[in-house]
């Protein structure tokens, strides 16, 4: 066993994916397009391009054939995630698909060692690992990030993931392949955080190339900045090397990278087509020693309109994907087109969450609404005052199960009370609760009145892009009006306007996606106001994030949860972590701050039937880092490995 213990990972499963590289080291194969370049003397032979211990991947189905392209679609100008879905983020470690994301595996680091108390992490890079320009990838590149970028005052603030317990991580360079990260406290969540795209930067910047933008390494910086029309080295760094988390990652074709495909036709402002080509130095091989990826080229077309993207799929030009395509409204059209384009529906599932997550603003500026929303009875009345079964029947063709939120039953994090309380449709009980709150007066339209004489009316913010949310809200609105005498208005605007309003705490209520897993690396914004997604307690989050300097101090029960939340990342084993989380959930379930409608049911994208090594189902990408499918093992199962025609 080559693997080392990864805190509370489940190492037993790892072996199925990886065989000892020593068995095959002598006999690597490469794609024909690269073999031609090697023969022409433009590229070193494959043995020299691969590290001494390449990552060996056993593909989901079979060893593949080299060749041809995969086509996909991009939605608009900030869909860089779509590209990263294909290449993977490629950090030091990765989350393990096969253990349902409850463990991590090494990736760019060939080996990871964790101290007993989970405070010291030792990473060993692969010897002979090279960037896409053929220069070695070493700890010098990692050091460049930790010493010159992360801690540079111009780059403040430092992500809180690097500051567990309030102390900055300590970087120790040991040799060309080895470095250590040391934390002041036990940090059990660290590898999961590290597997997340947000902590990719340590292995993202090639020092030789990116240091051209750094004041410490470039003596001519001022002149370079002027020549490039830039005002700060930070902007210059982004224009050269991009940011691993946004569009700029794909904007410069010259940036050396470690990804399976490298960008050839860039995703810059207004691009209509993006092309990626295989990285001749990619560090992974299959079990027969064939260097990955199998597919030569990825071709993405950019669509400004989601309907255009759908048409691209219907035309057979979207070979595999679900992002921006998986809306239930698209499914009949995709299903109808599938036989014609040689494709099938492809399931995208979630391991937890609700179809919509309904959050009243508990820190509302208006004192009367604030008081009303903070009455648990009011929230319970709303939750029991509409018929979830009918919402599911009407808006989801009956495909749903009433659910308040939280991970599903098969998840170890599942919490029954949190997910299933107050689901029953009980208009009489709900009305009794509302009467009990002193809302028994009604106006001529039958709307209940608050003590001040104002009607019980509020506006829920949503966005035009989420038509399924609007549909569900419409049914809820009708039920509340009819059964409770509560007037909800639906305000569907542009996403940025919605977020702007919420940021200013000007919203009455909001709905958003209800994905939840409570797994490491994900803030549980429903359990406590710990992220900007906690729209039910904007001011409380502000108070938490600014250490009490701004915002409003939350009530005692919320404060307790926040204190517990700070303990979560430090837990050193899964059971301890789960224990703390469930303490928070017990408290949150009693508080019942927000509610859901139905379980988040699987959505469907599309997959060409001739494409191999695609796992039968994919978890939704907004919950898990992309690239988990190992898209670089995909290939076309046709006679010559060529892509079948778009339409048959």
């Amino acid at each position, binding site marked *: 066993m080559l693997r080392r213990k990864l805190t509370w990972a489940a190492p037993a499963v790892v072996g199925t994916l990886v065989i000892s590289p020593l068995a095959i080291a002598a006999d690597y194969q490469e794609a024909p397009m690269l073999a031609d370049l090697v023969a022409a003397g433009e590229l070193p032979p494959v043995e020299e391009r691969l590290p001494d211990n390449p990552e060996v991947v056993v593909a989901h189905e079979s060893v593949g054939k080299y060749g041809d392209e995969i086509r996909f679609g991009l939605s608009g100008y900030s869909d860089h995630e779509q590209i990263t879905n294909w290449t993977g983020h490629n950090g030091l470690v990765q989350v393990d698909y096969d253990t349902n994301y409850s463990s991590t595996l090494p990736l760019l680091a060939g080996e990871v060692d964790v101290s007993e108390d989970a405070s010291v992490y030792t990473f060993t890079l692969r010897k002979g690992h090279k960037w896409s320009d053929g220069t070695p990838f070493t700890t010098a590149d990692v050091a460049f990030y930790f010493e010159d970028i992360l801690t540079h005052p111009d780059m403040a603030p430092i992500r809180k993931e690097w500051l567990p317990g309030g102390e900055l991580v300590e970087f120790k360079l040991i040799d060309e392949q080895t470095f250590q990260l040391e934390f002041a406290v036990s940090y059990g969540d660290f590898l999961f955080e590290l597997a997340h795209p947000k902590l990719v930067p340590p292995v993202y910047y090639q020092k030789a190339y990116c240091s051209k933008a750094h004041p410490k390494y470039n003596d001519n910086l001022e002149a370079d900045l002027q020549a490039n029309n830039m005002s700060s080295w930070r902007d210059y760094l982004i224009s050269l090397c991009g940011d691993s988390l946004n569009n700029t990652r794909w904007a410069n074709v010259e940036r050396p990278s470690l990804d399976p495909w490298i960008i050839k036709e860039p995703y810059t402002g207004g691009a209509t087509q993006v092309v990626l080509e295989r990285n001749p130095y990619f560090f992974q091989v299959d079990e027969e020693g064939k260097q990955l990826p199998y597919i030569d080229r990825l071709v993405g077309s950019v669509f400004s309109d989601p309907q255009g993207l759908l048409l691209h799929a*219907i035309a057979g030009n979207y070979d595999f994907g679900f992002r921006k395509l998986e809306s239930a409204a698209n499914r009949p059209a995709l299903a109808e087109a599938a036989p014609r384009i040689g494709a099938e529906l492809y399931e995208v599932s979630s391991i937890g969450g609700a179809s919509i997550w309904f959050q009243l603003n508990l820190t509302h500026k208006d004192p009367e609404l604030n008081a009303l929303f903070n009455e648990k009875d009011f929230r319970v009345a709303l939750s029991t005052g509409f018929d979830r079964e009918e919402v599911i029947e009407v808006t989801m063709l009956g495909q749903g199960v009433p659910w308040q939120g939280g991970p599903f039953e098969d998840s170890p994090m599942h919490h029954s009370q949190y997910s299933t309380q107050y689901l029953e449709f009980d208009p009489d009980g709900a009305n009794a609760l509302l009467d009990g709150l002193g809302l028994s007066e009604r106006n001529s339209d039958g709307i209940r009145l608050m003590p001040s004489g104002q009607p019980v009316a509020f506006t829920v913010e949503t966005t035009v892009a989420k038509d399924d949310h609007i549909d569900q809200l419409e049914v809820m609105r*009708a039920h509340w009006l009819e059964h409770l005498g509560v007037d909800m208005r639906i305000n569907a605007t542009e996403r940025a*306007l919605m977020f702007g309003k919420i940021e200013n705490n000007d919203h009455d209520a909001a709905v958003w996606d209800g994905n939840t897993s409570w797994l490491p690396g994900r803030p549980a914004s429903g359990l406590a106001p710990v992220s900007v997604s906690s729209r039910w307690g904007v001011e409380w989050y502000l108070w938490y994030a600014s250490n009490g300097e701004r915002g409003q101090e939350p009530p005692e029960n919320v404060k307790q949860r926040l204190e517990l939340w700070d303990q979560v990342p430090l837990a050193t084993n899964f059971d301890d972590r789960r224990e703390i989380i469930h303490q928070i959930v017990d408290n949150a379930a009693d508080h019942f701050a927000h509610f859901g409608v139905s379980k988040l049911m699987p959505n469907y994208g599309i997959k060409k039937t001739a494409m191999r090594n695609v796992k039968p189902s994919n978890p939704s990408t907004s919950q898990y880092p992309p690239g988990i499918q190992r898209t670089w093992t995909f290939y076309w199962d046709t006679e010559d490995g060529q892509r079948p025609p778009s339409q048959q």
Partner: protein
Amino acid sequence: MSSQDLPAQDIGPKDLTHPTSDVVEDPRHLDTASQGRLIWLSFRKHRLAMAGAAVVLFLFFVAVFVEFFAPFDPHEFNSTKIFHPPQMLKLVDNSDGGFAIRLHVNSMKIVRDPLTLQVSYEEDLDEKVYIRFFGRGDTYRLWNLFEMDIHFIAPVDPDQRFFLLGSDRLGRDVFSRTVFGTRLSMSIGLVGVAISLVIGIILGGISGYFGGIADAVIQRIIEVLIVLPSIPLWMGLSAAMPTDWSVVMRYFAITVILSLVGWTELARVVRGRFLSLRSEDFVTAARLDGSSRPRIIFRHILPSTYSYIVTAVSLAIPAMILAETALSFLGLGLLPPAISWGALLFEAQNIRSIVAGPWLFAPGFLVLIAVLAFNFLGDGLRDAADPYAALGE
């Protein structure tokens, strides 16, 4: 005609005369008829214009009594009737082996595919939905005043449903929704057009007739308004609207503001015409004759721009109705539960509707009919008001 310097009326070339003007009026009556009567006489003979007027009046009538004309509640969801195709009204009923004349539709049963979410319908031969005029259905409060339950067309059994124009993704009756849409589309949009029209004519007229400082100031205002790009303006507006206004109120406000910006085109054209007409002989003659300025503007110059104004109005109406779909595209249009033709078309503008429910585009035909009706009505008015058109030739 009161204007002294107008040329004789018999100048129209033969091939340009009115095809319907072959009914010769007694010339003696014409000599003494008032201008309003002359216009009416002329208008009455324009058959298409009369038809247009009838359609417009009918649409307004429907708009006033939507609750009565719509068979069902336009907001009523029905999970077993999703994307229900339109049903043909049938008269001959031989269900019991016999033969009877009863208005009905054949009932349909839904077949759903839970994976692909495709629905299809099979005709249910055993069940028919019988329909009658002036039947009883949902109760409603007409104009929020009168409690009623009589509908123009309704199923005999109030629990049954029929779909003359099919149903939408939530199983709502498209026919009822289209009828309800008439109210907003035939009111708010028209108010917007009217505002633009009044401002455009007045400011354009002043600018063109007087010139000088008035012209310069108005032109600068127009320039700023024209140059100011519309999309950011809309976005700013939608964010600025108070959320406690009702959806209709908000949309009305947006319409008013749009029309406060939208008069510029008309004003520029009217100005252009005034510039060229104010030096014409007949205007000079009127001026020398001592006519007051308003009289010159409104009696002499303005009538010669009628054609353009009528056309501009008949073009502005569909633009206003459809502006809503464009606004909705930007997330600024009418929000549910408000219903208008534009909002209905916006809901329908996706691939799913093309695949599963082409009947959702029905409101588009209503827009077309309304537009044509307004246009022919406008044509008739223009011809009738045209001092040069040969009357009774």
